[in-house]
Every structure is written in C-alpha cells, then in structure tokens.
C-alpha cells in the first residue's frame, strides 16, 4: 500500500469527527461576516411588503423538526411582518408534524410582536391544521375549505371563527406564502392555487430545493424564494430583526470550507495515486 493509498484509506470516523468540530466550533464561537442579500430573498421580502394592508393571505407551514431551524426564524419574522401590516393570516399544513411546528412558529412570532400590534387567534390569524392527501389535499382545500376541515388545529369549529366567515376558497386570498421546507411541495402551490385561482405566490424551501424551483421564479409563476437558513437570515436582516438564523448561516462557513478542501484533496490524491488504480 503506497502512502497515497494509506492517506485515502483514512478511517471514516476521523472525517466525521473533523466535520463535527467544524460545525460545532462556530456555534460556540460565533463570528458574523458580512454577506450579500440574494435577489430571490429580496424579491420575496418585497412581495410580502407589497401585500395591501388589511387583506387576507394563506400560509402553508411545511416545516418539520429537521427543517424548522432553517425556515422557522424566517417564518416567525414574516408573521410579525404581516401582522404589523394588519394582514389576516390563514395557516394550514399538509403534514402532521409540520402542523405542530406551525403552531410553534406562530407562538414564537406572537412573543416577538411589538406592542400595539394585534395577534388574536380567530381574528388576526387562524391555523386550519393538518390537510392530508398531498397535492390532492391541496386541491381539495383550495376549492372548498369547509369540505376538508370542520374545525381548526385547536378544535374550534370553523363556524365560530370570525376570520373564516367570508373565506372558503383560494381565490379569497390576496397572496400565498408557501413555507414548504423540504417537502418538495412548492409545485403543489403553483399547480393547484396559482394556476387555477391566479393568487400570487412566494415561498420558502430548504437550500437543496432552490435550483428545482428557479424555472417557476423566472417564469413569474412565483415571486422570489427564501432558500434555507441563509434565506431566513436575509429576511431577518431585511426586517431589521437579526436573530437565530444569522448565527446558523455563519456556522456553515467552516463545514463548507472543510468539505471543499476534502473534495479537492481527495481528487488530487486520486490523480497522483494513478487514475483507475488507487482506491477503487
């Protein structure tokens, strides 16, 4: 075994440990670096800002345990943003887990509300809870909310919710915010709500899904997108409320660099060790 082969045969667990350190170190010793705001995040923010005061909007909360740390801070800030403009929010979720996490987002956002801004359940916002059935469920919900939901997430019958009195269809909303996390569900919104009902939409997804949705953005079917923790951090920044997301976005620095270095190193060793021979 040559030296190169030995270097390539490094125990996996050493690489794992290195990565753990690279990810944990910046969390324990945060350093904030300047960063540019991506155009997609800016577009999404300006879209939310342009929704007329006092209108009603629909929000899909699709964040789960794994994706809440990335999208949650952004969603919380967006709820504050919209409530400050006296916009009424109707939430729903297409997953059981995400339905519970949407409540977390609402609770955290209400705790951040500046004084004088109303955030009353049933009046300023309502969480319609879990809608099963994936894309079919979204279509059912968009066409007739009462046909799929008889009560909200907390068990209040829909007839007793003042905010819902005039609302039963996707066309009753001024805008759609799709916080899809890693569900891959953003096309459901485009297909089942934007196309048939003409409701304008923006959304959030995890970093890995952003490239899949760029065609919908450049076609105008969707306005901007919040991508992962960096998108959330940018929304926080644009709102002037820096918080949890910014620190996490900075924590990707060392991990990303380590990964890049390992790829380059691995390839260099591979080519030195002789193509085709080496590790395989």
């Amino acid at each position, binding site marked *: 075994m040559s030296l190169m082969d030995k270097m390539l045969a490094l125990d996996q667990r050493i690489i794992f440990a290195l990565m753990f350190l690279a990810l944990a170190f910046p969390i324990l010793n945060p350093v904030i670096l300047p960063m540019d705001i991506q155009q997609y995040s800016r577009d999404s923010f300006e879209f939310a800002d342009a929704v007329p005061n006092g209108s009603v909007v629909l929000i899909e909360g699709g964040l789960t345990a794994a994706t809440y740390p990335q999208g949650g801070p952004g969603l919380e800030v967006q709820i504050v943003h919209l409530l400050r403009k006296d916009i009424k929010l109707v939430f729903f979720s297409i997953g059981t887990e995400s339905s519970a996490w949407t409540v977390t987002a609402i609770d955290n956002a209400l705790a951040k509300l500046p004084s004088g801004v109303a955030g009353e359940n049933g009046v300023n916002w309502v969480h319609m809870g879990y809608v099963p059935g994936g894309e079919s469920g979204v279509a059912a919900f968009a066409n007739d909310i009462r046909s799929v939901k008889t009560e909200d997430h907390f068990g209040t019958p829909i007839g007793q919710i003042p905010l819902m009195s005039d609302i039963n269809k996707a066309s009753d909303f001024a805008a759609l915010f799709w916080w899809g996390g890693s569900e891959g569900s953003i096309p459901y919104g485009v297909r089942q709500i934007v196309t048939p009902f003409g409701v304008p939409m923006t959304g959030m997804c995890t970093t890995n899904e952003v490239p*899949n949705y760029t065609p919908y953005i450049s076609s105008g079917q969707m306005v901007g997108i919040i991508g992962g923790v960096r998108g959330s951090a940018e929304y926080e920044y644009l709102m002037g409320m820096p918080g949890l997301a910014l620190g996490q976005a900075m924590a990707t620095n060392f991990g990303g660099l380590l990964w890049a270095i390992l790829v380059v190193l691995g390839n260099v060793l591979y080519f030195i060790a002789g193509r085709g021979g080496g590790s395989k």
Partner: protein
Amino acid sequence: MALIVAGRLIGLITLAIITGSIVYYMQRAYSGKIPKLRRLAAVNQIDEILGRCVEMGRPAYYLMDTVTMDTPSVLAPTVAAFQILAYTARSAARLGAKFFVPVTQGLAYTISSEIVDEAYKAENKHDELKLDETVMYLPDGADRMYIINHMWSDEMAGAFFIGSWYHKAVIFTENAARVGAMMLGGTDTTHNIPFLVAICDYSIIGEELYALGAYVSEDPTVSSSLAGQDIGKFIALILIVIGSVLLTLGMSIKGLLSM
C-alpha cells in the same frame, strides 16, 4: 355560458393532442408495432456488473428505496425499477450471480418476490434460488444499518440503485463505493441524481430510468407512452424556437398561448 372556462382552451387542446398521440402509439403497439427506443448503454452495464460479481464470487445488491406505489409520483419510477429488476434477475440467474433485493414495503415485496421467482424459473435455475434469502422485507427504520452491515460482511461486488431515491442515496452509495462495488445508479428524484452520477460507475438520469425499464422489458405500454410523450416534447421545442424567433423579430405568440 361559455363552452370552455376562459383561459384554458389552449391547455385543453394541448392535453388532447398529447394524450391522443399516446393513445395512438399504444394502439399501434398492441397491433404489433412497438416504437423503437434508443438503446441505452446501461443495458450492457447491467450484465457487466453481474459478470464482475460472478468472477469475484460475491453478491450483487438491487436496491429500490421508496416503493409506495399508491403515490402517483412514485408509481412510474417503481414500475421501471420492477421492469429492470426482472431483467437483472434473469441475467443474474443466467450468469449465476448471487443476488439480494431488500424491499421496504409489503406490496412491493410481494411483487418483487414474484418477479425474481419468475426470472429464475425462466432461466431454468429455479433450484438455485433461495427466495426468502434473496428478496427480503425490511421495513423503514430496520433497513439502513442492516443493509450497510451486510454490504461489508458480504463484500458485495455489484450494486444497482434504481427507483425513487431519497436521502438514503448518499449513505448507501458511499458505503458501496468503499466496499469496492461496481454500481449502476438511476433515479428521477432530482436532489439525488447528482450523488448517483458522481459516486456510481454508471448512471442513468431522470426519465432515462423509464426508458431503460421499457427497453429491457420490451413493454409495449411504457414504450408507446414514451413515444407519445416525445410528440409533446417536439411540440414544446417547436413552440419555443419559433416563438423566440418571432419575438426577436417583434411578433409575440404569448397571448395566443394563454388563451
């Protein structure tokens, strides 16, 4: 009352043309004229991988990840994975390669067992098959570490990652690569294509999966459906190219398309 909902006329016409051409090709296929699909390099690679396994006397793994067929988006890749499984199992039987197929869902497990059973029967190697060791039901949560541990203890020499792949793609391929297996990867879930392409020796991407399935099974249904869909692609290409040229010259057909 209008005959057609406003703004949806062109959509309806497009849908009619595309489904019409699919049905047309299907009728033709059932009267014996199966559309000729392009032969993908992967067809030979399947045999190459199995041949290597036989040479080294080690098993090949056939992994499909998500196989819940009542979800429409998973149905097509799973059907393709079954078709390719039928071909691979037959080659394995013919060449005498050891074969292992873990499946995470009950219904898919039943179908996979049938497929492998039939393949070995068709090659008259049925006495060499231990079906319950070859096809195994491993529900989600019990599968990941079991498969990885066995990859190492079996020192498997070949692996197929075919079907609707999610985050397990990286975990399995990374281990398989280091065990030293020769791999063919193919999925239509876009997030995991890059890893299959980068890690596997051979890869098929996106819809190539369906085409490979149709090609190896000589299935008239899927191949004629693909031929019909190709008509749709031609329509798209022509509209884009002509539309763009006209627009450059100052004429727009965009209004026409959103009628």
